[in-house]
């Protein structure tokens, strides 16, 4: 039964990602991407990665795509209109390069290869999946974990600074300078 489930999820994944890049309306593309992420989460569950699968739904489908939808709705985007010879040529070139990449990938996957020398790995201790991930994360990968939290902090500050825009920043700076240079 598991191979059938995998094939079902895989078909759903490929179909929805194709709709993401082919559909003209950005909101519909975003919704198809949510569907793609949820089917990918299903595949993760089949590959015995339960923690990663559900975190995928929580983070990607539940937070990142909501952010995308917010931005699309804020910008009030309508359907993409494209016409003209130049854009048609550009699109044809894009599909051609994609086909080349697909051919290359097929050559790689088809050719017989064996995993080369593997780096010393964290062997899975007999525990549930979440416990295994947690043990590895806080022992062997502690440094990347801390760096990632710094990265998130930097990203948060950066987003707020960027999204405020120049006008709001200038207003705040003027208010600050005017207040300081007001009374001696």
């Amino acid at each position, binding site marked *: 039964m598991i191979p059938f489930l995998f094939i079902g999820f895989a078909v759903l994944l490929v179909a929805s990602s194709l709709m993401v890049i082919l559909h003209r309306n950005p909101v519909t593309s975003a919704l198809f991407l949510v569907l793609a992420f949820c089917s990918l989460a299903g595949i993760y569950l089949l590959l015995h990665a339960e923690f990663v699968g559900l975190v995928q739904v929580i983070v990607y489908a539940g937070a990142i795509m909501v952010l995308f939808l917010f931005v699309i709705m804020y910008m009030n985007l309508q359907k993409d209109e494209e016409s003209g010879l130049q854009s048609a040529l550009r699109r044809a*070139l894009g599909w051609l390069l*994609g086909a080349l990449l697909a051919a290359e990938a097929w050559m790689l996957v088809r050719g017989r290869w064996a995993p080369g020398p593997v780096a010393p790995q964290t062997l899975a201790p007999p525990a549930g999946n979440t416990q295994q991930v947690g043990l590895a994360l806080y022992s062997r990968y502690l440094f990347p974990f801390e760096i990632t939290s710094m990265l998130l902090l930097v990203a948060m500050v950066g987003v707020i600074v960027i*999204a405020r825009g120049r006008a709001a920043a200038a207003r705040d700076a003027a208010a600050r300078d005017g207040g300081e240079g007001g009374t001696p």
Partner: protein
Amino acid sequence: MIPLGWSLALSAVLFVIGVVGVLVRRNALIIFMSIELMLNAANLAFVAFARALDSVDGQVFVFFVMTVAAAEVAVGLAIIVNTFRLRETVFVDEINILKG
């Protein structure tokens, strides 16, 4: 039991779809979404190998990739919003004011 080759083939297909999306579309948001598809293709390859090699390192790496992708999406969307405010457009071929 899912053969490793199936998962890798799926990952490759997803990656190619992402690449085509970046090359073909001109809406900055759709390009961004295609980049997310490529990141997820890489995640799928990691998880597939974690299963095949019976190691949990692949899943830990997926965790980090997801975190970095979330941070990247936030910053990228902030930049796109700012560009939209200045140029009134999200189509990347119309944002060419520096072109000589």
